[in-house]
């Protein structure tokens, strides 16, 4: 492979291009009207304009991306995550155009992209699953009937969804109509498929997932687990590996289950098998994400593999160079997703210009970002600014390093999830490892952050007064008077 096009934007496009360059391969960026000045465009060897800012007219325009690839002699397309990354039709068209799709096969994406087909696929491997209905629906009345049968709370999930998008919990029958309508509409506009899936909502669940890596010759290994239970709006915001609750024995079992899931669909490339873990540490297969995950850096840090490099090597036909026995956890890694969201205002998007942007640096600190000082966060895309990832010898060391890195991360102009990160990493429940996906609901209120801010503000205010009075004394009032007298006398 000589030239790879990255069909994405922001931090992930940049992160992929860095590996591409490291491997001596040329990179091609694509961009919308909103991203002409974005770092991924400036970094790439070649860059091509796609269209207007909305993703439907730019980053989702698969045909145009393929046409550009042919014109520029691209021999591989990396889709990143989001956008076209789990679109089997796009992967098929890329393959049909004689270009290598750096990711799984369209068949594997189709199977795992449909929750129903995925469940069918893993059935014969005896992998435990959460109770729910066995077909996707688009009819509101049928959904209400089904939900009443399963019992509330229930979870509505877009059949073609992922990453928490198009997912809604319904606690009461009264809310079902409105929530179903919104879920279907959201699924249609985000994924082009309005069908949804309904299942029992397991209370007190942990979200633990397993990284898998598979080559084209049937070799599959797992890259240990990632604990992703700290979520807001059912989307991950903090991830770590290893999990504080997974024992070596459970690690082997859950890892093996993940490898089975990958084998059931003849998986190729990197992928992630998600499990729901209950309070007794029973795990249930949720779904497989047929892409590179946002949180892949925590795995890279403790298993010592560059997962994008693995994807490219696999795509060009190389066999896995490591075996399962080579995969040993080295220390502890934690990631905080830095979103342009206001943790004091219900995590609503906070759009604006980064009037100040300085990232933390140091040993064991990695920042994957796609913005620079002075840039504006566009409203059209995911509001993630960066991933802040740290590595420590132990979990405690990693937590301390993370807290310092958050302090050293200076962002002004937009509200971010950084103060929320401090709240999480200082919290006893997080420290003890005893938490589930309800962490935010159970422990977090904006007042907790505000109290801390107020305490700091009070000290700052007093220091400002002290300093101001001290500086004022240096101005000699006598000089002033004499100057003005002189001026009066001159007239």
């Amino acid at each position, binding site marked *: 492979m000589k030239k790879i096009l990255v069909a994405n934007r922001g931090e992930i496009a940049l992160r992929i291009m860095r590996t591409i360059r490291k491997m001596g391969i040329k990179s091609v960026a694509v961009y919308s009207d909103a991203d002409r000045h974005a770092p991924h465009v400036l970094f790439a060897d070649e860059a091509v304009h796609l269209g207007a800012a909305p993703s439907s007219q730019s980053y989702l325009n698969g045909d145009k991306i393929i046409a550009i690839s042919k014109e520029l002699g691209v021999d591989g397309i990396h889709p990143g995550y989001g956008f076209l990354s789990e679109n089997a039709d796009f992967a098929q068209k890329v393959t049909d155009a004689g270009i290598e799709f750096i990711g799984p096969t369209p068949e594997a994406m189709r199977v795992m992209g449909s929750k129903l087909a995925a469940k069918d696929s893993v059935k014969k491997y005896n992998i435990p699953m959460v109770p729910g209905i066995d077909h996707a629906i688009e009819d509101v009345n049928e959904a209400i009937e089904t939900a009443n049968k399963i019992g509330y709370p229930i979870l509505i999930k877009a059949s073609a969804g992922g990453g928490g*998008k198009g997912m809604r919990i319904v606690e009461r029958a009264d809310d079902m109509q*409105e929530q179903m309508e*919104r879920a279907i*509409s*959201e699924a249609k*506009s*985000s994924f082009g498929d309005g069908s949804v899936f309904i299942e029992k909502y397991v209370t007190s669940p942990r979200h633990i997932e397993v990284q898998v890596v598979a080559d084209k010759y049937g070799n599959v290994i797992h890259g240990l687990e990632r604990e992703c239970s700290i979520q807001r*709006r059912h989307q991950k915001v903090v991830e770590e590996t290893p999990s504080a609750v997974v024992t070596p024995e459970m690690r082997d079992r859950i890892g093996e289950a993940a490898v089975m899931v990958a084998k059931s669909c003849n998986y190729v490339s990197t992928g992630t098998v998600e499990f729901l873990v209950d309070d007794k540490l029973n795990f249930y297969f949720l779904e497989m994400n047929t892409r590179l995950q946002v949180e892949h850096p925590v795995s890279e840090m403790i298993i010592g593999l560059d997962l994008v490099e693995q994807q490219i090597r696999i795509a060009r036909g190389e066999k896995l160079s490591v075996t399962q026995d080579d995969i040993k956890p080295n220390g502890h890694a934690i990631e905080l997703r830095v979103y342009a969201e206001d943790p004091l*205002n219900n995590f*609503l*998007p*906070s*759009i604006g210009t980064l009037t100040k942007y300085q990232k933390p640096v140091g040993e064991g600190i990695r920042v994957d970002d796609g913005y620079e000082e002075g840039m504006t966060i566009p*409203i059209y*895309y*995911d*509001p993630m600014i960066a991933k802040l990832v740290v590595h420590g010898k132990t979990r405690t060391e990693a937590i301390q390093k993370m807290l310092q890195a*958050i*302090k*050293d*991360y*200076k962002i*002004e102009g937009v509200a971010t999830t950084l*103060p929320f990160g401090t709240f999480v990493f200082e919290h006893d429940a997080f420290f003890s490892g005893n938490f589930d996906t309800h962490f935010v609901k159970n422990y977090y209120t904006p007042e907790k952050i505000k109290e801390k*801010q*107020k*305490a*700091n*503000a*009070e*000290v*700052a*205010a*007093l*220091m*400002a*007064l*002290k*300093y*101001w*009075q001290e*500086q*004022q004394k240096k*101005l000699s009032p006598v000089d002033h008077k004499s100057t003005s007298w002189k001026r009066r006398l001159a007239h």
Partner: protein
Amino acid sequence: MSESTKTFKVKANDFVFFFDQAAIDAADFFKKSPEEFNLIMDHRSVNARLLEADINGKKIKLEVDGESFDMEIKDPLDQMLDSMGFSSASTKHIKEIKAPMPGLVLEIAVKEGQEVKEGDRILILEAMKMENSIMIQSNAVIKRIAVTTGQAVDKGQVLVELE
């Protein structure tokens, strides 16, 4: 007013504090360097860095614990002037619904002149791939719709006006 009871008002970002001269004098403040300060308050040892200072304009910016604070100092005279200037400010009630976040108007569910009830959906705002129903919190009549479907709106922009 005696010197020690002179009260200073300090606005620090969204917070407001009052300190009298006695409290300022008693504060355990240490200047490590022209830009590095330390203050012990309630046994907390807090370090700060001076970012900006406008002594005449009474504006100071400090960084504490990784967070920056914009401070505005009001001495007793400033406070008196403020209270005179703003005491006559009218409390006009503008009845309107504003966008809680920037986004794209996906769908407008009401018409001008329509009577709406508490909890009715007014419109759907899409931001960052999430659809958010904007509901009304009380019964009202729609006076004017200030946006159109497909329009991008800023945070705080008026969406609809109410009678």
